[in-house]
């Protein structure tokens, strides 16, 4: 218990500091506005929300992985890179805090901003309820799994951000990694892998794809496997994040 307290000691302070940093600058507002705009455009225009003729949000949720892939690295890129370029990492590392608390505090602050973004999509939910009688329990479930998926994308961005002092570099590398984990479930990619390495390899690749893991939730089915995947993925990258941030101490 004491060890846990010791390691997670900085969580609260870090979380509040990072969350206020998002809202003290235009960062969070710009992110939320553009994210919501993009989600709206894709759902209504590209997804042809009205033409599907059914009262559900599938044309809305289908875009989540793709938009997260671009937007969430942008949200996470400053978490560590900014500390390094401003020199405040020196201050942070001199405080009697455990690395797990710092990593999780930062990650959860970005996650909270992403959650606010999701909550602000409530007009979509009101619209489908106005148009018909959707399965609201299923919609809620899809939202929750989507939020877990957002954490997984953010954990990539945060970890990569600890590797560099440049936010732009962090963003580009994170998007590439996020793209790899998203596109791995794309039919085009999967059929190519199948042709080259056989169906077993294609299956394995698909297991690590966010698209595949999110598929069940999109249909309103709660898959324990997918929940464990996103939580495990986030935990894995959070550990990498801690290791990469600790490298600073070695000089």
């Amino acid at each position, binding site marked *: 218990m004491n060890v846990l307290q010791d390691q997670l000691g900085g969580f609260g302070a870090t979380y509040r500091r990072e969350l206020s*940093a998002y809202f*003290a600058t235009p960062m969070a507002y710009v992110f939320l506005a553009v994210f919501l705009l993009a989600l709206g455009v894709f759902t209504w225009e590209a997804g042809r929300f009205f033409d599907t003729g059914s009262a559900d949000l599938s044309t809305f949720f289908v875009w989540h992985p793709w938009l997260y892939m671009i937007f969430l690295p942008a949200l996470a890129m400053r978490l560590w890179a900014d500390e390094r370029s401003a020199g405040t990492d020196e*201050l942070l590392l*001199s405080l*009697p805090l455990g690395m797990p608390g710092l990593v999780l505090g930062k990650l959860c602050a970005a996650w909270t901003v992403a959650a606010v973004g999701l909550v602000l999509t409530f007009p979509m939910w009101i619209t489908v309820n106005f148009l018909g009688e959707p399965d609201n329990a299923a919609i809620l479930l899809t939202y929750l799994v989507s939020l877990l998926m957002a954490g997984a994308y953010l954990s990539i961005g945060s970890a990569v951000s600890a590797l560099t002092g440049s936010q732009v570099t962090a963003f580009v590398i994170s998007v590439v990694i996020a793209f790899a984990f998203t596109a791995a479930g794309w039919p085009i990619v999967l059929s190519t892998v199948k042709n080259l390495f056989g169906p077993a390899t294609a299956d394995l690749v698909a297991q690590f794809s966010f698209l595949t893991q999110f598929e069940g939730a999109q249909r309103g089915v709660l898959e324990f496997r997918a929940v464990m995947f996103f939580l495990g993925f986030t935990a894995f990258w959070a550990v990498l994040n801690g290791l990469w941030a600790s490298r600073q101490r070695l000089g």
Partner: protein
Amino acid sequence: MLDIRNLEKTFNAKRAVQGVSFTLEKGTVLGFLGPNGAGKSTTMRMIAGVLEPDSGDALIDGKSIVENRRAAQAALGYLPEGAPLYDDMTPPEFLTFMAAARKIERGQRKDAVERAIADARINTVSGQKIGSLSKGYRRRVGLAGAILHDPPVLLLDEPTDGLDPNQKRAVRALIARMAPQKAILISTHTLTEVPAMCTRAIVVDRGRIVADGTPDELARKSEDGTLESAFTRLTDQAEANAE
């Protein structure tokens, strides 16, 4: 209160710090002098637990920075070189964050923050974002962050660098007020400040200690009796010996 034991650090091929040892008692203000690149900041960063030493140890109030990092860091106030701060916060917001990170009890945070603001004389800029403050005020906000939890050991890396004479005097006065209760290590390359601020001085060059004594004793090591020529002689000599 501060016990430095044979600290060493090598970056790639460069041996930045090569076996630095000294001890510091309560009530001492130690000036840590040396040319740029002599290893002053590297030594301070190792004592602060920001950088892991290759070998050696630093005991802060009896706690090892290597074995028991967080306990040692809790007994230390550190002002890093250039006083890096979060520009998007106001000084009270920043100090409240530091108080929470320092695990000061929730009920006492406000008092601690107010006391640090008064001690560092930054109450006039409380409403401004740190990013908009002048260099002098930034230093003082950094200093307020370092003394917030009233640590027994203070580590100040160039606290007066880039300040105007009035600001320097204010910082010196603050250090003098705190001196009797604490062990204070100050790195500087502004030699004129040393006699006014420090009771003892250590000169480092190329990662080694080349002189240790009161500012007067150091000054006597030169022909004309000034600290500046003593400094030049000590650090030049070390350079000559190395070649």
